[in-house]
């Protein structure tokens, strides 16, 4: 019953002792609920790529990297759109963060995008340590209710776990208080163009040398058609399974399928022919004009040189 969700860590100040008192059990229960009530964190992939990159460039001996998160916040959600890393030193007993640098960089970034504000900070690594609490306190001075994001670049659980937390006070009011980090839900959001860029880059994973050239235009249409074909074959196999009784029929999926089939427009053959032909004629004419123009300027070039 009092199972502590592995995601939350409670850095206690030394004075308060940890025992399985009913108070503690109540708190564990409480933050299980609270996990859903913090602001929703929407992250753009550019932030994650920058974090991974700054982790790869860390100084010798540093086990983790920290930095500032920039973005916009409204009542229910926080959108993280940019970040920059901040140099810091961490040892057993103390932690030093270059605040000047952080301020400077923020000023520079503000010149380009004035709408971005500091909304929190990130750290690579899996745990929230005591040093994190101190750093978080610093950031609380810069932003109201900062969020703290951890990116597990050491791949502790064979995955890059990306988590976000918000801190809240807890403990007995009046007596010793502690700080608790409550986890938040994360959503990845993309601009359309970002999505297209990331989709292209997903294909670099497949190639063994981790490289990918940018393909020519007709090839792109062909590959997009290939992807649609894949999706169609997945659907077909599902339908086969349902028909043969292997899988339970799901009504909502059936409705989507009806929608899909109805979406193909029903046009009479002649109308479709005429539409298709006029479109093709337009495109061919434009191609012809473009070729003509190119021939013209090439000719002009040669004539001048004569």
């Amino acid at each position, binding site marked *: 019953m009092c199972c502590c969700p592995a995601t939350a860590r409670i850095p206690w100040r030394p004075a308060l002792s940890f025992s399985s008192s009913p108070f503690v059990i109540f708190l564990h229960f409480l933050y299980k609920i609270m996990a859903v009530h913090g602001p929703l964190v929407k992250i*753009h*992939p*550019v932030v*994650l*790529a*920058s974090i*991974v*990159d*700054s*982790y*790869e*460039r860390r*100084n010798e001996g540093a086990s983790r990297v920290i930095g500032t998160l920039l973005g916009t916040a409204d009542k229910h959600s926080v959108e993280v*759109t*940019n970040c920059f890393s901040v*140099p810091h030193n961490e040892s057993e007993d103390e932690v030093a963060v*270059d605040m000047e640098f952080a301020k400077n960089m923020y000023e*520079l970034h503000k*010149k*380009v995008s004035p709408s971005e504000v500091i909304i929190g900070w990130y750290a690579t690594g899996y745990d929230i340590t005591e040093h994190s609490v101190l750093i978080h306190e610093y950031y609380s001075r810069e932003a109201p209710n900062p969020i703290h994001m951890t990116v597990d670049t050491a*791949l502790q659980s064979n995955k890059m776990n990306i988590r976000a937390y918000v801190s809240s006070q807890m403990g007995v009011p009046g007596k010793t208080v502690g700080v608790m980090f409550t986890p938040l839900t994360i959503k*990845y959001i993309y601009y359309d*163009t*970002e*999505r*297209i*860029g*990331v989709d*292209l*880059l*997903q294909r670099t*994973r497949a190639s063994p040398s*981790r*490289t990918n*050239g*940018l*393909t020519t*235009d*007709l090839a*792109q*249409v*062909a590959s*997009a*058609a290939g992807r*649609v074909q894949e999706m169609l074959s997945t659907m077909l196999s599902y339908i086969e399974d349902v028909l043969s009784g292997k899988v339970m029929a799901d009504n909502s999926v059936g409705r989507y399928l009806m929608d899909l089939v109805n979406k*193909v427009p*029903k*046009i009479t053959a002649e109308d*479709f022919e005429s539409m298709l032909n006029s*479109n093709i004629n337009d*495109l*061919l004419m434009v*191609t012809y*004009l*473009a070729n003509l*123009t*190119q021939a013209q300027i090439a000719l002009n*070039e040669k004539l*001048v*040189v004569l």
Partner: protein
Amino acid sequence: GDRLNGFENGKTQLLCLCVRLQVVLKIIKHYQEEGQGSEVVQGVLLGLVVEDRLEITNCFPFPQHTEDDVDFDEVQYQMEMMRSLRHVNIDHLHVGWYQSTYYGSFVSRALLDSQFSYQHAIEESVVLIYDPIKTAQGSLCLKAYRLTPKLMEICKEKDFSPEALKKACIGYEHMLEEVPIVIKNSHLINVLLLDLQEKSTVADKHELLNLSSSNHLEKSLQLLMDRVDGMSQEIVKYNTYCRNLTKQQQQKQQYLQRRQQENTQRQSRGEPPLPEEDINKMFKPPQAPPRMDTLLIAGQVNNYCQNIKAFTSQNLGKLFMAEALQGHSS
């Protein structure tokens, strides 16, 4: 500088360009957030040169609307940014710059000048052109260009007259050369991509297979027409210049002939011949129009035409697919 022995002076041996994921994403984000409509966003590329490759590992954007802010100093911003990035071990070698483009119109005097100053300072500089409109249509459009060595020579001399260009045999096709781009990622980035793919929903917009093309075609053709108009004006200017030149040659000849005649007449009469006058001072040759603008316009027109052709070929493919789809159901 940090140049390796692979590069000899004046020869471009840059085989390809390696770009990292975060550079691509940052450029996309910069345009998305700060560029509206036909405004151009620019920024600086950082990286290093490795053997025959140029690796671009980071970038930062330039703020816009600097005309409003009088105290803003571009150089200072750049210096500060690079100094700060050096603190966090980011490569601070300035290897080029990037710019977004509107329907492919980027071949201009400004681009030429900027790229020339970059390439003059650092030989391997490139300019990355990002086309957001084409990217929004379904596939990332990022191209890298450098000035050809011939063009670099011309720019150094700053001599853009027709004779100089004729000597160097520069056509509009030899102005910019494209460098192939390769996207290279580290293993950790691959893990990140895997994670993203698992956690994200399937994209609900498949722009690439979109059939509507008329809007894009209209705009492209409009821009093409404007440029062709500009081109014809330049041609008219050049033709008048040629005509003036020949007329002047004829006038010179006539004058010389008359002189000769007069001199022989005078000789026959026993009078001293007229003094030789400086022909050139009397007939000043007309000013040759600078050919650089014509070259630029020609290059731009060529670029537009290529873009249009690529676009139409894509659309033809899509139309045939639509026909096949219709054929099955009707």
